[in-house]
Structure formats: structure tokens, C-alpha cells
């Protein structure tokens, strides 16, 4: 699981242009949205949905579903591990 979390962190940093950030800067359990953690916004949710489909063949039906999946890197990695198609 740690390997997948690290892989996801790298992909998120690249997809969201998180300039100057490394995987070590992202806490596995910190919230990705809101004022704490990464402070991502609604457009970032859409980019993460694209990232899951493109890289793992996972299609989220709605951005609301994404809110659950993208709670933290750890939660995202668990979801990817359980639902990935590639």
C-alpha cells in the first residue's frame, strides 16, 4: 500500500502542478481539500477524477463521490487498490 500511496502522490503532484512539492510533503492522512492539508479546490477534484480514469480505469460517477474517495492519500490509495481495472 505504501508503494501505491507514493505513486499516487507523484501523479497528483504532476497533475495538479503542485510546484516544489515532494511526496514527503504530503501527509498520508491529511485532508486533501479545505484549509488544511493540500488545500485543493473543485477544479482539482475534476483533475483527480480524470487522473483515476486515465491511470487506473476507474470511473467516478459524480464529483460528490470524489469527495469521499479524495479524503486523504491513504483513503484514495485504498479505493484505487480495491477498484482499479488496470
Amino acid at each position, binding site marked *: 500500500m505504501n508503494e501505491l500511496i507514493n505513486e499516487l502522490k507523484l501523479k497528483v503532484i504532476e497533475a*495538479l*502542478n*503542485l*510546484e516544489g512539492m515532494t511526496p514527503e510533503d504530503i501527509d498520508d492522512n491529511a485532508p486533501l481539500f479545505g484549509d488544511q492539508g493540500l488545500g485543493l479546490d473543485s*477544479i482539482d477534484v*475534476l*483533475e483527480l477524477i*480524470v487522473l483515476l*480514469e*486515465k491511470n487506473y480505469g476507474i470511473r467516478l460517477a459524480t464529483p460528490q463521490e470524489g469527495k469521499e474517495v479524495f479524503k486523504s492519500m491513504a483513503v484514495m490509495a485504498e479505493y484505487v487498490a480495491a477498484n482499479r481495472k488496470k
Partner: protein
Amino acid sequence: MKHVSIPSGADLGALYRQVAGDYPKFFKMDVLSKLGFLLTEMLVADEANRFQPREDRAVLVFSREGCVANDRHYAASMPDFPSPALFVYTLPNIVSGEIAIRNKYAGETSAYVLEKYDEAQLWALVREAFQDRCTKSAVVAWIDCPSDTVWKADAWLVGREEILK
């Protein structure tokens, strides 16, 4: 009036770290918005009460090519997975909004796409913006960026008195 410019092809990331450095959203912007953001930082960085919300400052951005550089990137992403982050910059007026949001300006924001750089036309439109009696100053920019690496980027901070004299 104060004038600043950014040479074509300059390293915008390095310039950002030099003149701002506290606004990570910069890295998500298209080249048009990056240039508008940086020009404005250079113009107003030394102002007293920076970031105090104000309604008396307008943002007027002029260009010829608009956001065509980003439009091309977005078009290229469409056959695969259209990028939402690129899509949000497929309007040439987003740059004026980015400047207003960063600086808490609630005055007029406008973006004009002109056929060519026409100084007389540009300043006539600036004078129009001062007809509302609320606007006391304006960030005025000519930003023309046909690609991510080639541009003409100039900006002026102008006051009501010097425009309507």
C-alpha cells in the same frame, strides 16, 4: 504613471519566486494569467494597505491573441481526457479576474481583444473606465502571448487625474 514589463521568454517561475512566492495557484494558471499576475505584483508590491479590499481600482487587460496559447493546450487534451484545469483558462478575461481575486479589487474588471496594439484605442478605452466616478486608479496591461514562450507584456498603474486631465 508607473510602468513595468516582462521580457519575452523570461523564466516566469523564477520571477514568481522573486516577486511573490506565496500564491501556489500561480502554477496552475495559463501563460496569460501568469503574466497578468506577475505584472500586477511588480506594480503594486510596495503599496501601503496591500490586500485591503477596495472598489476604486479597475483592472483592464488588453491583448491581440487572448488565451490562444492555452486554447491550443486544451484542444490537444480533448482527444484523450479533456483537462478541467486547462478548460477554466479558455476565456481571455480570466486574467483580469485572477488579478482582482489576488489583490481583493472589487472594481471594474475588463478584458479586451483588439485587432492590433493601438495605443490611441487602448487609452480611449481606459478613459471610458474612469467615467463611473468610482474608479480612482487602474491596473492597465497589454499582454499578447501567442505561445507559452513568446509574448509582449507591459502594464501601467494609472490614476484618475492623469487619465482625465
